[in-house]
């Protein structure tokens, strides 16, 4: 069993969870339904895009602090992006 991979995954999961938690502190959603959807979206975004952001764009080194921080950063930003997208979609009335 690949214990290193599991550990890295757990660190990323922790980072994504922390990012979602911090996002909740700064931008609480209006409904409980929104809370669950946004949390899931942020968590998934942190897990998927944390590493690409760290490696390709931020050029942060390969250390656990940076895995965690990049996952948290992506989760934090995706929370806000999701909220903005929902507001924009909600504001669109469609053609009369």
């Amino acid at each position, binding site marked *: 069993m690949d214990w290193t991979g599991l550990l890295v995954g757990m660190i990323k999961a922790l980072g994504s969870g922390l990012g979602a938690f911090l996002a909740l*502190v*700064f931008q609480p959603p209006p409904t409980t339904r929104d809370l669950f959807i946004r949390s899931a979206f942020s968590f998934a975004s942190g897990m998927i895009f944390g590493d690409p952001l760290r490696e390709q764009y931020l050029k942060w080194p390969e250390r656990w602090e940076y895995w965690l*921080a990049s996952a948290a950063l992506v989760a934090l930003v995706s929370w806000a992006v999701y909220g903005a997208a929902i507001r924009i979609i909600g504001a669109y009335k469609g053609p009369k």
Partner: protein
Amino acid sequence: MTGVDTSLLIGLCLALAVSVGDKRAWGWLLAGAASYTVSVLYWRSGLPYAPFVAGMCDALICLAVYFRAKYRWEMMVWRIFQASVLVNIIYLGGTLNAWPSLSHNAYSIILELINWAALLWIGGNGAFQPVGESDASFTAARPLRGLRRALSALHEPRATPAFHKAGR
């Protein structure tokens, strides 16, 4: 205990004294004091990532205020602790070289200012309660009553409770 700790402790005692009877003010004052104590003890024990622990303590208070607050003035407490979380995150990122570092002195001074802002805000609002309830013949409270009237909007229920659209 340093001079900064002592002065904050004196400020806390004064804020508690002027807001006797206001359980909400006491709750937030004691929560803030607990957060400060945990953060400082962790920092002085020399363990790593102290700004992270300090930020998480403040984040927990933020969530507690957001979910438990009833009045408008309490929402400002939420904003004050949000600022504290933000400063801790910025400093932590700087120590990890994720972005330009904030000096430790600047970090400490900003956090002290935030702590004092929280003490003044919560203590001041807690002190409003006895002023409003004082007898009309108590003339010494007359100027304070005018101040209370001017700021009475802060003691109205908050505009939107937590998860205000939860029923939809």
